[in-house]
């Protein structure tokens, strides 16, 4: 009787492994790819989130679409391209580097450089003025 019980317990514990719904390694790989694509795409309803982070209906639908296409053998690049063709560059969470976005990418660095230059100029002017003052005092 004890033996039977043990056997039953083993069977119960092993059941999830036998069940057909258990995720296989290929499913896990697919999920990983879906996740990678989802992290590149902006959720257009909640614009500061990627569709990986968002639970909006649109984000769920787009993730589903990405999963279907990846499962059909399309590459991650293809899926991102598919979304850009329909939703525009805006769907990319990381804006592409092209003429219309040069200002966006380079702007902050240009501003920083301009600020540094202005600061340097000011400091030099002040240095010169102080130098003059110092020589005046010596005279």
């Amino acid at each position, binding site marked *: 009787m004890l033996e039977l019980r043990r056997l039953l317990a083993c069977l119960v514990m092993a059941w999830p492994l036998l069940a057909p719904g258990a995720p296989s390694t290929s499913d896990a790989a697919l999920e990983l790819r879906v996740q990678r694509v989802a992290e590149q795409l902006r959720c*257009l309803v909640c614009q500061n989130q990627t569709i990986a982070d968002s639970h909006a209906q649109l984000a769920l*639908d787009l993730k589903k679409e990405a999963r279907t296409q990846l499962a059909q053998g399309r590459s991650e690049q293809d899926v991102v391209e598919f979304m850009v063709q*329909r939703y*525009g560059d805006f769907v990319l969470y990381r804006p592409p580097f092209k003429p219309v976005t040069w200002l966006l990418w380079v702007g902050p660095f240009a501003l920083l450089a301009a600020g540094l230059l202005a600061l340097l100029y000011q400091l030099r002017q002040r240095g010169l003025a102080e130098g003059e003052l110092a020589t005046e005092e010596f005279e």
Partner: protein
Amino acid sequence: MKRYMLPLGGFLILLIFLGIGLRLKPQEIPSPLIGKHVPAFSLPQVEDAGRSFNSRDMEGKVWVLNVWASWCAPCRAEHPALLEFSRLAAAPVVGLNYNDVRGDSQKWLKEFGNHYQVSAFDGDGKTGIEFGVYGVPETFVIDKQGQIRLKLTGPLTSELIREKLLPIIRELNRA
């Protein structure tokens, strides 16, 4: 006096940029589909699942595609304006019932009035994705050659119909 000019100038520039920022509408994303051919689709009708609507049937006509859903509150808000527009009969209005449950959308049409020539039922939202739909309601104007010429995101108003929709439809119908 001169030493105040620089900060004041900087402040004014900042004000100008803030002013521009206030006028931007980040919700309105330019559609890459403008000027492209309308994605072909064939879907069952909302009113009668046995009949279907094929986008190719509209070839040679200037037509309006209005994306709507029964769960979408702004769709209800634009409903009177759209009704008014359909009465003008400037162009046939086809509905794309996006991400919906058929029973709900049929009830919605019965309750608020059906001003669509026909509504295509896109229950899983797949056709919506083809159109880059991200916020219902959305309205597309399609020319005789099947090119998308205008997309409006958000509820239609009498003003939008008068100033945007009607002029382009008139122009396209002449072409």
